[in-house]
């Protein structure tokens, strides 16, 4: 059973990775990241089969809230990107930050 769940986690992680690599806009990147976080949640399931299930629950809650915070930061970045460039194309995201 654990092997099935881990295999599903690997499949979903691979789909998210391929989708993120082929993304042309940052909204698709956000969707791919959420998919990859879902794969991470699936990989936490074997922790609940150990006697330390309570600690596993705490670890899972920390993981979910941390990933949700990261995604909220990315959503805010998308809104700022749209305000600044009037576009969400990934080509607008360049290294270097603000021009002086």
């Amino acid at each position, binding site marked *: *059973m*654990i*092997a*099935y*769940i*881990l*295999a*599903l986690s*690997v*499949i*979903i992680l*691979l*789909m*998210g990775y*391929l*989708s993120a*690599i*082929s993304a*042309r*806009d940052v*909204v*698709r990147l*956000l*969707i*791919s990241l*959420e*998919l990859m*976080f*879902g794969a991470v*949640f*699936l990989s936490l*399931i074997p922790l*609940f089969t150990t006697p330390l299930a309570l600690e596993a*629950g705490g670890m*899972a*809650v920390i993981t*979910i*809230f941390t*990933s*949700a915070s990261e*995604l*909220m930061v990315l*959503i805010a970045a*998308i809104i700022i990107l*749209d305000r600044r460039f009037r576009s*969400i*194309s*990934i*080509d607008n995201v*360049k290294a270097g930050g603000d021009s002086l």
Partner: protein
Amino acid sequence: MDAEATAILIVSVFAAISSLGVLLARDNFYASIYMSVTMLLIASIFAMLGVHSMFVIIAFIFVGAIGLITVALAATYRYLPPSKLSNIWILPAIITAGMLISSVYGLYSYIQLTDTISQLAESYPEIVTLLFAMMVLMMLSAIHMIRREVL
């Protein structure tokens, strides 16, 4: 295989199919819908295994809040780019996925064996093949990013 394992297997298949929908959907809105369905199926796997607290957190916080904002964003920016998935990615991606899945099954079978060292030594070429396929994927990613930066 009992009824619970069969149900989890069926839900896993549907989750894999909907995650494939995220990759293949060209419209962001449908991709976000497929992503929400995948996350709900993942939460239902937790529920079927008896971890109801995780089901509530994933379904109500992750899908209910973050997923809903993502769907709203995707509905606002319905960007339809041309498909850029190159065919040269297919072979290393299939090799990597196959090796990772087979290694998960191999790890599951190693637990039941006593002589694990000899089993690992026998699978050494497979590990080399996996590392080579992953290296090809990373190099393709680097080439892809460099080309996009030049253009």
